[in-house]
């Protein structure tokens, strides 16, 4: 047996305590997250979900009904991009595209009149997503339908109140879907602003950027219209700063109930000016933002439908 020498004791390294402001900030963030979470799963009235569900369905119906989807059939397979969620779907003939369009529109009508609204909405969303995805499989990433598809995806999981449910009845089931849709709209708009700052900095708003965007765009009102705006001192910077501020503050404007309707109006003004100056149609974004933000911002229930029957016990 050999005797072992006692090991020298190594003092434990001391971890410095985080500064007080750090602890306070952490507690504040955790508290805010808890409050947000509590608001998400709080009960909500049946009428708000019905309105958001029906209005988003109407946007889907409008998009489905007002586009000639058969143009997709004219695209050669060699020029189709398959790196998206509809990449696995084979090229469809014009008749099949029209079939999807008709089924989708009928499903929208059924969802709005609340005949099996959940299944009808799902059918409409699938038809719309397939058609919009195929339309956008030509090389250029098309954002026009992205917001409607994403908000619709969230509403697929909503348990829609039945016809017999009184509008003012509340439930956790009916509270979260419109709030989730609101969160999606807020994050999408905020990200469009964040990406401008990330890739271009404040110069995106404060430099000549917007003036050159206007000069290089194609306005339905002709080049004189956009050149007049581009050449007016400070007006392009003002427009760009307004757009950037609206996008970045979307989460706040949609969090506060009374600024939701003004947000929808501001979004409509922004996208209308984009259409007027550049000819880009983002009407689906305008309508989707309104479909979610307006019912969530109204302090009173719209007068239609007037009354609901008493729910069965």
């Amino acid at each position: 047996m050999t005797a072992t020498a006692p090991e020298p004791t190594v003092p434990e390294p001391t971890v410095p305590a985080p500064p007080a402001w750090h602890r306070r900030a952490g507690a504040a963030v955790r508290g805010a997250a808890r409050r947000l979470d509590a608001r998400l799963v709080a009960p909500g009235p049946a009428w708000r979900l019905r309105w958001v569900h029906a209005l988003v369905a109407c946007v889907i119906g409008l998009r489905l009904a007002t586009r000639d989807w058969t143009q997709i059939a004219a695209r050669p397979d060699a020029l189709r991009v398959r790196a998206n969620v509809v990449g696995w779907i084979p090229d469809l003939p014009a008749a099949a595209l029209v079939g999807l369009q008709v089924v989708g529109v009928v499903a929208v009508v059924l969802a709005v009149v609340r005949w099996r609204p959940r299944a009808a909405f799902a059918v409409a969303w699938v038809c719309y997503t397939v058609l919009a995805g195929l339309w956008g499989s030509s090389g250029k990433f098309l954002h026009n339908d992205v917001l409607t598809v994403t908000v619709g995806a969230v509403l697929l999981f909503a348990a829609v109140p039945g016809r017999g449910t009184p509008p003012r009845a509340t439930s956790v089931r009916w509270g979260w879907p419109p709030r989730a849709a609101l969160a999606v709209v807020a994050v999408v708009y905020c990200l469009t602003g964040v990406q401008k700052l990330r890739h271009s900095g404040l110069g995106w708003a404060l430099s000549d950027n917007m003036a050159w965007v206007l000069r290089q765009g194609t306005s339905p009102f002709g080049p004189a219209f956009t050149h007049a705006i581009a050449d007016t001192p400070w007006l392009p910077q003002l427009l760009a700063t307004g757009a950037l501020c609206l996008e970045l503050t979307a989460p706040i404007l949609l969090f506060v109930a009374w600024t939701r309707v003004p947000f929808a109006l501001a979004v409509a003004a922004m996208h209308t000016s984009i259409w007027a100056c550049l000819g880009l149609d983002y009407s689906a974004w305008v309508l989707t933002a309104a479909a979610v933000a307006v019912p969530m911002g109204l302090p009173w229930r719209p007068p239609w439908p007037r009354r609901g029957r008493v729910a069965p016990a």
Partner: protein
Amino acid sequence: MGDVAVPARVDEPGDERSTARRARLVTYGAVGALLAAALVQVDVWPLTAMRLFSNVRTDHGASTSLVAVGLDGSRTDLRPAGGAILATTSHLFDDLERADDARAREMVHAWLDLAGVDPAGVDRVVLEKATWVMAPDTGARHETGREVVAEVRP
């Protein structure tokens, strides 16, 4: 226009818990997916990095054009000749630089077909990149350079 008397809440306690679980899964899942796509710059429709006009524009720019050069030396710009479908696929022009011969020929044949140009009368299809400067007062673009970046024989 008063509503009939309604029950204040229609939830069962167990029902509430499972609904809250679903609410969190869907909401945080959707928000997380949107944030992740933006962070890693993914553009797989409908997931997107949300880069809408995020680059700064100046008076300088560049554009690409696909030109069919006939056996007689005539040049036909395929983009305006091809209509809306060709216009939507014009973002694939740049892929010609990286495509192998078979794939490049396949794409070029498709564009010639859309533009109504007979491949039998075409010697080669060239992808040209032009740089330009725009005059702020007139909006006219003045070409500052042009180079052929890809050439395909159909």
